[in-house]
């Protein structure tokens, strides 16, 4: 069975600084997707960034980027120029690569990100 591990229950960063959230996963599949989701107090899960396992290039979305190390099964999220609105729970998630990651996702336990003004 696939597992996703987030070893940082809580992280704190000063506004405008850079923070990196860690995620490791375990799978025997060769074709899969990895995701970072953000869950603010509104409870809605919002997709931050997605990485296809077959792509060697790390995904980037504005201030958000990932460091995907396939051999090490590591998938960290870097947030640059942190903003107050980035404060939320961040979840790392995995999906086998059948329908672009819309199949059943396996989530980690989450990292609570605090932004210090």
């Amino acid at each position, binding site marked *: 069975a696939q597992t996703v591990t987030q070893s940082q229950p809580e992280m704190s960063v000063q506004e405008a600084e850079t923070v990196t959230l860690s995620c490791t996963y375990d799978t025997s599949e060769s074709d899969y997707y990895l995701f970072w989701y953000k869950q603010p107090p509104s409870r809605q*899960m919002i997709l931050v960034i*997605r990485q296809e396992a077959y792509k060697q290039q790390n995904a980037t979305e504005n201030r958000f980027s990932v460091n995907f190390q396939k051999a090490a099964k590591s998938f960290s999220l870097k947030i640059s120029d942190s903003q107050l609105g980035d404060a939320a729970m961040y979840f790392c998630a995995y999906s086998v690569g059948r329908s*672009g*990651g819309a199949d*059943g*996702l396996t989530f980690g*336990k*989450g990292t609570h990100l605090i932004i210090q003004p």
Partner: protein
Amino acid sequence: DAGVTQSPTHLIKTRGQQVTLRCSPKSGHDTVSWYQQALGQGPQFIFQYYEEEERQRGNFPDRFSGHQYPNYSSELNVNALLLGDSALYLCASSSDRGAYNSPLHFGNGTRLTVT
């Protein structure tokens, strides 16, 4: 463009009762997935519905069942409620007929409390 909508927002039930949660997918989406998120945990996949049939299921007992209607809306039913069923239930939709890499869109969830 309306996103994924769920009802009700909050619900309190007694142990042993049955509950039905509802979800309307984002416009243009035809696939609905349900997740259970216990307090302090990440969401866990319950099942996915496509073309009115359960296509994929996570590790949940038969007390959890669902339905999808021709308009793609969906219901999650939980029978014989246990205290451990207290959680946030999230609905997510996607487009199976869209691009291969269709991501999930989540609703705001239904907070179920079992007393």
